[in-house]
């Protein structure tokens, strides 16, 4: 054998085996070459792959392995040394890279594994979050339901609607099988089933309120789970396999008075209703916390809505009541008005009808008086005249009575002769009495004052009425009139216990008794005597009726005079006595302030007190001015003294009542002042009296003075008395009759 560079295989190659090896190697090489390609392709595709370096290494390893196997292809046949060298190099390289890769993989694989772990972890987390989100969504939806429910409940003020809506909405939101409301009865001892959702059970079913379970629910404002077998929950027809859970919650029933400003009525309410909610049976549902919260919230809202509805109901009812009352009052008012109008019309007509004949009587009687008459006739005519005047006064008083009732009548106070009044009454009554053959006696006590202050006309009317009645109702016998000043012991009458008169210095109480021996009065009828138009039965005989206005008017007048009037009688046929007490003033003692320029008292004495009377004195002589001023001030006047005509005209105001012009200023000045004063005060009322003081007795002066409109002339020197009489005459008459 020759030594060749070829390397020959050890054993002769089996041709088939060789072929298969050849093909396998080829495919291996192919695979080895394509793997990196794939890797590169896919890595390029993915954006993130942190291990590029590893990939490169792995790629290199694979490529070299492929190369090795590829070169191996040539070694099956005889191959040159170059091939062997290349083969060897490839093998060496491959060995290096593979070792390097192996070493690298040790580092890499745990990392890759942990990535996997993290992935699993994240997936778990995502699942959990999903679950939670589901829960939140459920809650949010529940919240929405509550809001909607509340809105529904609060959008109506009708009790029934509120409750019905509550149940419906709750049922829908929570998918309840049954929802019921138990309200306390009027007595508060039982709970009555008032509303249910599905009308499955009769409404009206009651349950006593004192059950421990119910107390438990009422004692807390939370929803409480109760047993499905409790009486309140036993609403469904039995036969279900497994009843769902039941929850009950209290609904406070609030009243108007429970609303304090500061504290929400929690503890003060005592009345509760019970709301029972049942989950569908045969479901595995449980009451969730959020559902319970929903129920509690709803219960509260329902309470508020119910109370609002109650308030509204109350106010509506009150308003209706008020309207009714209003209508009734309006009607009553109109009726009253009509009645008053009717009465006034009647009175007016009656008045007129009565006045016309009265007028005729009075006119003709007074005409008759003017003619030639015998004394007897004259007396008769006078009596007729007086009676008709009285009657005219009575007619006036019919109108007065209505005024009396309004309280608008006032007495005409004046000084009059008391004794004369009695005499006049006697004179008026005597003719009639003598016709009936009744004797009349008048006895006035000695301490009765001659003059008194009061309403003369009306006192006479009362007296006449009473005496007239006495005469009217007596067929025979006598009538006695007694008058005296009432002392305290006589003032208190058992019949008039409320009457506590207090005599004083300015007043006295006149007590008059009119006793007759007439028909008498039934004691039962006495109270009716003084009422208007009241008739006492036995007197409807041929006598004119005992009713009428007379005594009623008398009573009112007497009351106005701060007195009392009453009648006593022992019975029918036993006569009767009328008593009345009136309060009269004592003239001269009274302290009416008599302002000198309003002289009401027609007395003979001059007012001596000119206090406050404002006067202006004009005198250019300072001594004279001072003397006149002193004189007037001594009389109590308020004097303003001036020294010139201009000043005089300037200072005079409507408050000043008199202006004294001293005419020692010669000639025209005083007249000029008078003229100017007339100009200044055009209204008569404002202008003070203008009086000239002069020492000149000349007629000319007097004429000049009256020409310019002076109210008087006074001759100097003036004494105190003279000034006094001048002032009083001025103020009483408005001018000086003659120069004083």
């Amino acid at each position: 054998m020759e030594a060749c560079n070829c390397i020959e295989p050890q054993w002769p190659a089996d041709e088939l085996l060789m072929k298969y090896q050849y093909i396998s190697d080829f495919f291996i090489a192919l695979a080895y070459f394509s793997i990196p390609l794939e890797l590169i392709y896919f890595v390029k595709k993915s954006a993130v792959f942190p291990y590029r370096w590893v990939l490169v290494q792995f790629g290199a390893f694979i490529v070299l392995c492929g190369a090795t196997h590829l070169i191996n292809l040539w070694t099956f046949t005889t191959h040159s040394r170059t091939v062997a060298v290349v083969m060897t190099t490839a093998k060496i390289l491959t060995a290096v890279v593979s070792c390097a890769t192996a070493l690298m993989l040790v580092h890499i694989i745990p990392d890759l594994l942990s990535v996997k772990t993290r992935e699993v972890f994240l997936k778990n987390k995502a699942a959990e979050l999903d679950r939670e989100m589901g829960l939140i969504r459920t809650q949010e939806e529940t919240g929405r339901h509550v809001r909607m429910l509340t809105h529904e409940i609060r959008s109506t003020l009708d009790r029934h609607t509120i409750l019905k809506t509550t149940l419906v909405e709750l049922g829908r939101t929570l998918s309840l099988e049954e929802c019921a409301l138990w309200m306390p009865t009027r007595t508060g001892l039982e709970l009555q089933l008032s509303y249910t959702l599905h009308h499955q059970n009769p409404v009206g079913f009651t349950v006593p309120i004192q059950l421990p379970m119910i107390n438990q629910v009422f004692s807390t404002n939370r929803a409480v789970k109760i047993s499905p077998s409790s009486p309140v929950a036993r609403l469904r027809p039995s036969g279900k396999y497994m009843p769902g859970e039941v929850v009950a919650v209290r609904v406070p029933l609030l009243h108007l008075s429970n609303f304090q400003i500061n504290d929400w009525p929690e503890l003060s309410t005592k009345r509760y209703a019970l709301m029972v909610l049942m989950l569908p049976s045969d479901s595995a549902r449980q009451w969730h916390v959020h559902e319970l919260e929903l129920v509690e919230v709803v219960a509260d809202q329902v309470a508020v809505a119910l109370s609002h509805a109650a308030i509204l109901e109350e106010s509506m009812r009150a308003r209706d009541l008020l309207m009714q009352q209003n209508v009734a009052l309006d009607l009553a008012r109109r009726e009253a008005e009509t009645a008053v109008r009717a009465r006034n019309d009647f009175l007016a007509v009656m008045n007129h009808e009565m006045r016309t004949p009265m007028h005729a009587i009075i006119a003709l009687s007074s005409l008759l008086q003017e003619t030639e008459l015998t004394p007897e006739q004259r007396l008769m005519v006078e009596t007729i005249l007086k009676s008709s005047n009285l009657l005219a006064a009575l007619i006036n008083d019919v109108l007065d009575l209505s005024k009396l009732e309004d309280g608008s009548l006032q007495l005409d106070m004046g000084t009059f002769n008391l004794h004369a009044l009695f005499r006049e009454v006697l004179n008026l009554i005597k003719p009639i009495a003598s016709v009936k053959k009744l004797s009349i006696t008048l006895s006035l006590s000695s301490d009765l004052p001659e003059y008194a202050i009061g309403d003369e006309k009306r006192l006479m009317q009362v007296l006449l009425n009473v005496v007239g009645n006495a005469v009217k109702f007596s067929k025979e016998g006598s009538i006695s009139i007694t008058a005296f000043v009432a002392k305290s012991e006589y003032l208190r009458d058992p019949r008039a216990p409320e009457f506590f008169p207090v005599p004083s210095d300015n007043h006295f109480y006149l007590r008059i008794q009119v006793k007759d021996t007439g028909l008498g009065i039934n004691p039962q009828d006495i109270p009716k005597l003084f009422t208007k138009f009241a008739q006492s039965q036995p007197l409807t005989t041929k006598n004119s009726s005992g009713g009428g206005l007379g005594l009623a008017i008398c009573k009112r007048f007497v009351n106005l005079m701060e007195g009392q009037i009453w009648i006593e009688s022992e019975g029918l046929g036993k006569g009767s006595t009328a008593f009345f007490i009136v309060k009269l003033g004592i003239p001269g003692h009274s302290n009416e302030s008599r302002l000198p320029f309003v002289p009401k008292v027609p007395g003979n004495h001059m007012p001596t007190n000119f206090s406050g009377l404002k006067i202006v004195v004009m005198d250019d002589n300072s001594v004279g001015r001072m003397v006149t001023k002193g004189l007037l001030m001594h009389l109590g006047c308020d004097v303003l003294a001036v020294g010139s005509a201009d000043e005089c005209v300037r200072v005079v105001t409507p408050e000043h009542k008199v202006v004294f012009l001293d005419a020692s200023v010669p000639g025209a000045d005083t007249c000029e002042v008078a003229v100017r004063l007339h100009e200044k005060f055009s209204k008569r009322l404002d202008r003070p009296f203008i009086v000239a003081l002069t020492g000149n007795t000349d007629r000319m002066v007097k004429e000049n003075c009256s020409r310019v409109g002076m109210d008087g002339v006074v001759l100097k020197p003036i004494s105190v008395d003279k000034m006094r009489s001048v002032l009083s005459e001025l103020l009483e008459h408005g001018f000086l009759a003659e120069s004083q």
Partner: protein
Amino acid sequence: MEIVGQLQKQYVDFINSLFREGYLDDQYVQLQKLQDDSNPEFVVEVVSIFFEDSEKLLNDLASSLQQQVVDFKKVDGYVHQFKGSSSSVGAQRVKNACVAFRNFCDEKNLDGCSRFLNLVKQEFYLVKNKLETLLRLEQQILQAGGTVPLIE
């Protein structure tokens, strides 16, 4: 109270003499009547004003009568004033003198006027004297604790 009684008697005598002699007339009594608690110094005040006024008037009279051309109207005016004030006080003689004076003024008798001016002046000072004495007496009585007797 011996002194009071004495003083009072003195007063009464004096004032009666004044009335008798015509120095004062009833008007003075009226003035006295006007004096009361609200006006306790009334008489004194009036009399003082009278004195003042009169002095002035007399001066004016004198000066107006000394003019070259005498304005009788003005003189008459003054005399009229004087008459008024004296009669207000009750100085009777002064008043009478004034009345006569006025006549001369009307006649425009300068001589008569001058003469009467003197007369009036004289009367005035006389009555002034008397009044001062009277008022002094009154004061004494009051100081001694008595009351001034009123003359009717």
